[in-house]
């Protein structure tokens, strides 16, 4: 009798840790608890996978998310059952909206107790179902290794997204042979990657015939690592390009063809060019309502090409003329090859007129603000930060006015440098995300631009930063208001500032010190640059910079919800004639 091939028999918890190692996972963000104690015991015995102990499970998901956005690798989270997993839901939903690959492992009560309302039991699969790309409950240790493989495969392929794997405690104690598959096939899941050649040909025809072309590129370009392909094609054509909030860095912001971000707080020129273009090339962008404004008034004259890996994104909000389903990198490569071979060239005369029109819009200088103010203008802080970091920092943000100013005034020339919660708009994202980025890139400058309201939502992670020596820099634009809420209340609720002001704000300098870090309070414009330099010079210290900024400053331009792209509120800094023009 021949011996069956001898494979090692391992406990589920050992299988779990071995599978992570075999998957190439180096970092796991997590928090222990009863249901995952077998796993934590195995983590203790090895050092291939480094575990980062966060202070709240929401922080773990945001940190893993920041890590994933900056590196392109999946972010991995490990939490216990019950409140451990419910605390991850905001982070999972954040990643889901922005298509970020996360694999979240949650402990579960033993299989025999599932459904019994056991201690720390919650239906993790049910709770997370609407905000994951997919989730799995592992009922048998024999399925554990292959399920982990599937989870990473689903999270990383196609349109990426978070995947949750729920593992009952008894599964981590049971024993079976360990076999981690090299690759995995799912008959029900086969994302398209190559674009249809006929559709790409049609797109090339439309693009070359354009008189007033516009390229609109989103986060999909960054997820697909297609920034080089995008840049090559855009520069070959000489067409204007705008990026979405999620797409910033996909095309170098300091290049002359870049007309700024578009959408609700996009530049005047980007929104006007969108409104008046005759051919719109949408690449890895999803026509989100913050981009389109009123759909009835969106790009009224444009034929639209849309390249996206997710068929469901195409013609969801705006009907398109030439849909191309495929990986942006592959499709842009094919499209550029076609354009190179084509004898036809873009219409130079029409393009010159179009650029002249755009230059006229640019003259408005829509991001102008009072640079001579004594009171610190928040825009000034971001602009100075861009200068002193040479435009090369990783910048995370929370959500609100500071996020928009960061997007408008920090010019990102490289992809994966701008890390923010675009889709879900999650306050509390910035600090843990910066922590995740810093872990991946210890030698790089990582700055979290935040506000005093967002900052306190995940502030507990300052402890984690100390424990793992992650000296991020925090730029807090402190206007003592929930700034964006205040702005909407000023514009649309006659200045009734309902619950957007906080009466008791902590002393952030002392707070930073209490966590073992450095705190700075900056109250005058003249001190902004020197303080930033001083903080950045403290390479091995986390510095929290509390900038006391102008309380009344608003984010401009602004398209009110439901208005058309060409209906922008402009800053009072613009002359009245200019404001009427808009």
């Amino acid at each position, binding site marked *: 009798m021949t011996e069956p091939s001898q494979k090692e028999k391992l406990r589920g918890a050992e299988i779990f840790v071995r599978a992570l190692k075999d998957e190439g996972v180096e970092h796991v963000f997590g928090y222990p608890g009863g249901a995952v104690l077998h796993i934590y015991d195995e983590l203790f015995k090895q050092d291939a996978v480094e575990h980062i102990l966060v202070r709240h499970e929401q922080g773990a998901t945001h940190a893993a998310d920041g890590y994933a956005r900056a590196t392109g690798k999946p972010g991995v989270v490990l939490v216990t059952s019950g409140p451990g997993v419910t605390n991850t839901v905001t982070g999972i939903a954040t990643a889901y909206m922005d298509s970020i690959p996360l694999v979240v492992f949650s402990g579960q009560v033993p299989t025999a107790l599932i459904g019994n309302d056991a201690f720390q039991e919650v239906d993790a699969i049910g709770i997370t*179902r609407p905000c994951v790309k997919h989730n799995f*409950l592992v009922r048998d240790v024999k399925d554990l290794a292959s399920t982990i493989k599937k989870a990473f495969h689903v999270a990383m392929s196609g349109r990426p997204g978070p995947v949750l794997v729920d593992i009952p405690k008894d599964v981590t104690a049971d024993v079976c042979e360990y076999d981690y598959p090299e690759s995995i096939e799912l008959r*029900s899941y086969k994302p398209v990657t190559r674009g249809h050649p006929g559709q790409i040909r049609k797109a090339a025809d439309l693009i070359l015939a354009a008189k007033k072309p516009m390229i609109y590129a989103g986060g999909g370009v960054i997820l697909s690592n297609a920034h080089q392909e995008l840049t090559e094609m855009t520069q070959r054509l000489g067409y204007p390009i705008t990026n979405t909030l999620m797409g910033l860095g996909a095309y170098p912001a300091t290049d002359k063809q870049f007309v700024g971000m578009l959408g609700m707080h996009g530049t005047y020129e980007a929104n006007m060019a969108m409104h008046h273009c005759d051919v719109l090339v949408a690449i890895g962008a999803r026509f989100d309502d913050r981009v389109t404004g009123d759909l009835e008034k969106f790009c009224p004259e444009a034929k639209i090409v849309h390249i996206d890996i997710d068929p469901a994104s195409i013609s969801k909000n705006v009907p398109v003329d030439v849909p191309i389903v495929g990986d942006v990198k592959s499709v842009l490569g094919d499209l550029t090859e076609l354009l190179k071979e084509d004898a036809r060239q873009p219409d130079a005369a029409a393009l010159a007129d179009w650029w002249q029109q755009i230059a006229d819009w640019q003259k408005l200088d829509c991001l102008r603000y009072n640079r001579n103010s004594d009171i610190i203008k928040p825009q000034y802080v971001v602009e100075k930060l861009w200068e002193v970091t040479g435009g090369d920092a990783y910048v995370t943000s929370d959500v609100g006015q500071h996020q928009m100013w960061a997007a408008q005034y920090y010019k990102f020339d490289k992809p994966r440098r701008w890390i923010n919660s675009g889709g879900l708009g999650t306050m509390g994202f910035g600090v843990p995300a910066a922590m995740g980025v810093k872990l991946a890139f210890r030698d790089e400058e990582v700055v979290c631009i935040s506000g005093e309201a967002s900052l306190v939502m995940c502030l507990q992670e300052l402890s984690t930063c100390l424990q793992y020596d992650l000296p991020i820099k925090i730029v807090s634009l402190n206007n003592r208001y929930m700034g964006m809420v205040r702005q909407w209340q000023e514009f649309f609720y006659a200045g009734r500032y309902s619950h957007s002001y906080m009466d008791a704000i902590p002393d952030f300098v002392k707070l930073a010190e209490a966590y073992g870090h450095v705190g700075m309070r900056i109250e005058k414009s003249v001190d902004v640059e020197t303080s930033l330099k001083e903080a950045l010079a403290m390479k091995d210290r986390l510095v929290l910079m509390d900038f006391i900024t102008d309380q009344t400053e608003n984010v401009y331009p602004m398209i009110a919800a439901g208005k058309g792209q060409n209906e922008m509120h402009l800053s009072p800094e613009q002359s009245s004639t200019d404001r009427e023009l808009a």
Partner: protein
Amino acid sequence: MRHILSLLLENEAGALSRVSGLFSARAFNIESLTVAPTEDPSISRMTLVTGGSEEVMEQIIKQINKLVDVIKVVDLSEARHIERELMLIKTQAKGAAREEVKRLVDIFRGRIIDVTENSYTIELTGPGDKLNAFLEALDRRMILEVVRSGVSGIARGDRAIGI
């Protein structure tokens, strides 16, 4: 417009709730939904009746296709197809009505599958409008209970949905 979608999906715990959850999360409408394993026990077949404009139907089909457990989606209403529904009805059957109900069941080619002194239990299959017509023909006050399976559908001719 009314559409009949036919789905093949992994016969796994939770697959049904992924489909039904998608419909509620995206505010799509479900008229009926039936699901059971096929000849291959690892695959379930679902028939789902829904409706909406062309754009909404395109989104529904794309979103269903996106679910990792879904192997295939076909809109049966795009081509010739057959739809059937099973209905079980319990009615009063006393006195003169006993004969009348029996005649009605014969006309609709139904079957009486259980009888008591006071009641009939009737089995009827057919497209939804035939079942509706039968219900309308009965005196509403006589109906004790109605159980409908929801629509099952299949394409006409040689066309078959497989993996």
